[in-house]
């Protein structure tokens, strides 16, 4: 009989911080203590606080242990699980108040979150279909097949106001309606799990933590539009997610939840996985479908839209993972339930992958309309090292930045568009005062130059030329005329590119030009990088009155650019210095600075 459960995060984040060794240690120590029949050890999906991995929660107490190492396990087993004494030194410090352990939901990180798409992540074992079923899994599919007509399903999704979580925010119900309106015949349901934004991992975590929710939602979509086949297009770089999806599909088939005559009805539906090779452009819907067909992943002009002519020329619904993760709950709890959350035109919640200069990096799900300030300061716990918030890049290489003056902007599709950013798939990179915005724009553009498929000229050549102009600026060789040229070229690329990759590629440049024009000017006019991030526009120097001549910097310098005698101030030879910054890190007296 189970009296206690240990939920151990086995998402990619915690796996790379060593959760498998922790898992083995728990198993071994439970056996040693004779507790294996009373304490259930469950590998679950992502809890969200990836910065503190490996993470585990012990129920019924709900104790949250963070940064657990295999050597800590014997203590947790004998103290907590045998004797009932919580090991406070390992408890996540935000849940410790005056020696009392409080609920995780009360912590800054979780208090403002509302988990819908992530509701099962970190709760169930994703490799066991019974656990998904225990949390009402597949009830929505059963309800749809036995009690609802396809049109009713589409109406519920339309009324809920759900919009695509993959980027553009197209109303999901509308999309399904278009595909359903096509004449009967072969149709397809596809899932876009080709998450390509640098720093984004929402879809991966959903697939790793709750793969069945996507299968169930795809089957519901299949019933709604009259399709009997589905494909999940997922990048091969997500091995854990692929593995768990494979198990989930197998178990769903075994239980008759995929396959023929589901729930004793005429409805048949099956799903296959297609692995992508990791090209960013394959996240674009027409390129993705072309890639599933076995061709080179290149976009094609729209219309016709996939809902009319998609995979193999047949009507196809293509939604992103997070969009699907909302569907079963909407069916069970009704359209009003979702539309009661969020803002006027953006309903429900959105998952963000919080990264960069932030205390709690990880995965957060918040109601639409939450402000950037709430995400950064309350949920994210602010910027480490007492530094100042400078900007946040939202929407990855297709999005834009939100400067500190707009930190109170509400996060929803339309408000973000207004300030020149976009929701995108949900990557959120926080930058502090040390980040150079020109350099950031250059970083994202380098990514799109690399990922441009080359089919259309504006994107292939335009982004390359734009990148070269940015490089000129960061090297201090730019002119004011170059900045105007950059702006003109950006609009040209946006207007003339074939697909969303090119149409959105200049966004980081345009939004940094809009909000940080002064930084561009400093690079061009004063030949100075205000954040001291651009190597060609800064030098590293030793402040003579702070240097005590300990010789440490001299020893670590990889190019022997530092000279000086013991107990006398040292000097850096600027002609040799490669500006690697190692000496700054090593100096105990703060005597070495960038200027």
């Amino acid at each position, binding site marked *: 009989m189970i009296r*206690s459960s240990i939920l151990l995060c086995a998402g990619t984040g915690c796996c790379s911080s060593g959760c498998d060794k922790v898992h083995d240690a728990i198993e071994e120590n439970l056996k040693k203590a004779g507790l294996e029949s009373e304490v*259930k050890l469950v590998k679950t999906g992502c809890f969200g606080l990836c910065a503190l991995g490996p993470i585990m929660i012990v129920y*019924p107490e*709900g104790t949250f242990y963070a940064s657990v190492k295999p050597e800590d396990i014997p203590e947790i087993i004998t103290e907590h699980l045998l004797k*009932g004494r919580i090991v406070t030194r390992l408890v996540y410090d935000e849940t410790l108040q005056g020696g009392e352990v409080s609920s995780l*939901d009360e912590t800054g990180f979780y208090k403002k979150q509302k988990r819908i798409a992530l509701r099962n992540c970190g*709760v169930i074992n994703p490799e066991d279909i019974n656990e998904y079923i225990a949390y009402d899994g*597949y009830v929505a599919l059963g309800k749809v097949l*036995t009690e609802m007509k396809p049109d009713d399903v589409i109406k519920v999704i339309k009324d809920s106001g759900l919009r695509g979580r993959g980027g553009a925010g197209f109303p999901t119900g509308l999309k399904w309606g278009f595909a359903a309106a096509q004449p009967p015949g072969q149709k397809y349901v596809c899932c876009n799990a080709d998450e390509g934004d640098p720093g984004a991992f929402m879809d991966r975590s959903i697939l790793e933590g709750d793969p069945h929710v996507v299968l169930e939602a795809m089957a519901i979509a299949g019933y709604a539009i009259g399709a009997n086949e589905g494909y999940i297009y997922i990048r091969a770089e997500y091995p854990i997610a692929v593995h768990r999806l494979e198990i989930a599909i197998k178990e769903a088939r075994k239980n008759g939840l995929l396959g023929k005559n589901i729930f004793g009805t005429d409805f048949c539906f099956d799903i296959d996985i297609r692995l992508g090779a990791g090209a960013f452009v394959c996240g674009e819907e027409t390129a993705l479908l072309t890639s599933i067909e076995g061709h080179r992943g290149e976009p094609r002009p729209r219309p016709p839209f996939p809902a009319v002519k998609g995979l193999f020329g047949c009507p196809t619904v293509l939604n992103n993972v997070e969009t699907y993760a909302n569907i079963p709950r909407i069916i069970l709890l009704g359209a009003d339930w979702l539309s009661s959350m969020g803002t006027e035109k953006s309903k429900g919640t959105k998952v963000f992958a919080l990264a960069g200069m932030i205390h709690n990096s990880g995965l957060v799900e918040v109601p639409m309309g939450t402000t950037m300030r709430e995400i950064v300061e309350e949920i994210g716990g602010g910027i480490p090292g007492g530094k100042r918030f400078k900007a946040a890049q939202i929407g990855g290489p297709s999005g834009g930045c939100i400067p500190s003056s707009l930190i109170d902007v509400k996060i929803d599709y339309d408000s973000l568009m207004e300030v020149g950013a976009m929701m995108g798939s949900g990557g959120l990179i926080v930058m502090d005062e040390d980040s150079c915005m020109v350099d950031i724009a250059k970083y994202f553009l380098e990514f799109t130059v690399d990922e441009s498929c080359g089919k259309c000229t504006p994107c292939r050549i335009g982004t390359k030329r734009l990148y070269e102009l940015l490089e000129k600026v960061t090297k201090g060789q730019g002119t004011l005329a170059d900045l105007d040229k950059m702006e003109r070229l950006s609009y040209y690329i946006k207007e003339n590119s074939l697909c969303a990759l090119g149409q959105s590629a200049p966004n980081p440049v345009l939004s940094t030009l809009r909000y940080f024009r002064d930084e561009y000017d400093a690079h061009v006019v004063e030949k100075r990088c205000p954040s001291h991030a651009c190597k060609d526009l800064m030098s590293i120097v030793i402040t003579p009155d702070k240097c005590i001549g300990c010789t440490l910097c001299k020893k670590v310098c990889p190019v022997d650019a530092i000279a000086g005698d013991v107990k006398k101030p040292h000097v850096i030879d600027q002609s040799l210095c490669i500006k690697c910054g190692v000496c700054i890190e090593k100096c105990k007296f703060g005597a070495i600075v960038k200027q």
Partner: protein
Amino acid sequence: MKSLEELKALRDKARENMGIREDQPDATRVVVGMATCGIAAGARPVLTAFVQEVAKEKLEGVIVGQTGCIGICQYEPVVEIHEKDRGKTTYINMTPEKAVKIVHQHLMSGEIVNEYTIGTIGK
């Protein structure tokens, strides 16, 4: 899967094997003293008896847990029941048989089993 009923039956069965996985701040907590003295006096079978009986009767809002030394070692095994509106009840010299009776009389019917207690204090 042939029907929604079949799925719901499977769901109910699956739930039994899940254990508690959410915070329940208002639950009644049954806490068994499991320090060295408690274990030596036989607290383990008492704990198991509580867990099994609570599961068997499908009681909701009851958490069975353990704690360290309560401080009255001569009365071990000691079990405390914390209720939100009634405060704490302390049962002493516990056995698995007493545990079963406490589940039925105290947890299910709300009547404290006076002869097993060390006395009760109000909240």
